[in-house]
C-alpha cells in the first residue's frame, strides 16, 4: 500500500477513525535523519501491504498536529490503534522493529 500524506485536514478521517493500525512518520524536509527514515517507511508500507495504513506528517506544514502529539524530536514514528497512540519511536528506526511493533 502506498504511503499516505497526512495533514490536519485528513488526520481525523485517516488516522483517528481508521479501522486498521496506522504507522505515522513525523518528519521535516530539512532534517537529515528524516531523509534516512523515509525509505524505511516506504519499505514498511510495501512489506505490510493492506494489513496497515502508513502515513507521513510534514511537521512544518502541520505544526498543530506535531504539537498535539508533543513531537520534540524528528523523526518520530507513532503507531495508532483505534485512535490511540500505542507505541512511539524516536529517531531512525529499523524496519524489522517497526514491523514487529504492529504485529
Amino acid at each position: 500500500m502506498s504511503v499516505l500524506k497526512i495533514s490536519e485536514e485528513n488526520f481525523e478521517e485517516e488516522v483517528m477513525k481508521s479501522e486498521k493500525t496506522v504507522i505515522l512518520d513525523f518528519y521535516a524536509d530539512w532534517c537529515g535523519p528524516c531523509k534516512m527514515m523515509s525509505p524505511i517507511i516506504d519499505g514498511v508500507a510495501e512489506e505490510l501491504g493492506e494489513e496497515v495504513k502508513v502515513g507521513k506528517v510534514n511537521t512544518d506544514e502541520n505544526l498543530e498536529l506535531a504539537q498535539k502529539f508533543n513531537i520534540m524530536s524528528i523523526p518520530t514514528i507513532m503507531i495508532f490503534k483505534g485512535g490511540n497512540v500505542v507505541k512511539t519511536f524516536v529517531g531512525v528506526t529499523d524496519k524489522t522493529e517497526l514491523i514487529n511493533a504492529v504485529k
Partner: protein
Amino acid sequence: MYDIIIIGAGPAGISASLYAKRAGANVLVLYYGESNLDKAEKIENYYGFVDGIDGKSLYENGIEQAKNLGIEVRNEEVLHIEKVEEFTVKTTKGEYKSKSVIISTGNKKLRPNIKGILQFEGKGISYCAICDGFFYRGKNVVVIGNGDFAVSESDDLKNIANNVKILTNGLEMETSSDYEIVTKKIKEIHGEEHVKSIEFEDGEHLEVDGIFIALGKAGGSDFAKKMGVMLEKDNIKVDENMQTNIEGLYSCGDVTGGLLQVCKAAYDGARAGLDAAKNIRRK
C-alpha cells in the same frame, strides 16, 4: 575532493587508510584528541610483538606508517558530517569534501550518566540541535557539554531559542564562548510528560524546556545520529563490509561495538578501506 575521508587515527582508521591507499584511493585522515589505545600501558596479546608494546608507541607508529606511505594525516577536530550527493566534513579549521567517509573514532559514551536522561529522550532531551531546534522556538534550552562540540550545538540553537546556556556537569569548560556557562554538577532531570527542570547537586533547580546533549568532543556516534545512521545502543550498525545504512558511509573499530581489541579494529579497517575504495572505482 578526496576519495575517502577517514575520521580517527587508531588501528581501525589507519588500517583503513593503508588498504584504501594501496587500492589507489586518495585519502585524508583527520584525528583529534586522545585515543583509547594511546592510554593502554602495555599490549601483550597483539600478534608479532615478542615483548608486547605500549599503546602509545603502537598508536604513534600507525600514524607515522600512514604518513610514510604518503597519506595525508591532519590533526583537526571534526564537528559535523553532511551528505548531499557527496560528503562534506566540517572541522574546527575548515571543510573537506569526499566521495566516501569512514568513521573510526573509537567508542564514546553518547549519554551522560544523569538520572532522567533515558526517560525524557524525545520528550525534551535531544542529541541533534539542527534537527530538533525548530521545536524549541522561543523556549529556554541548555546544552550539556564542555567543548567546541557543545558550542557548535549552541550556535545552531541561539537564533531559534529564547535562551541558551551551556551546562558542563562539573567539568571545566575547554573552550571560550559568549554563552552563559554553568559548571555545577547535575543531579537529576525532572518533568512529567516533558522535561521541566534540572536539579543540581547543590539542590538548586533550573527550569528548562529542552536539553541538548553534546558531551566532550563529537564522536562517531554523534555524527552518525545526526545523519540518520542506524545505531544499536551507542554503537554504529554496519554490514559485513562495514558500510552503514547510508551509502558510502562506513564505520569500523570500537565505535561499531564487538571486541574492543586492536586485532578486530585492524580487520574492520581493512574491510572498510577496501570496500570504500572498490565502490569509488566502480562509479
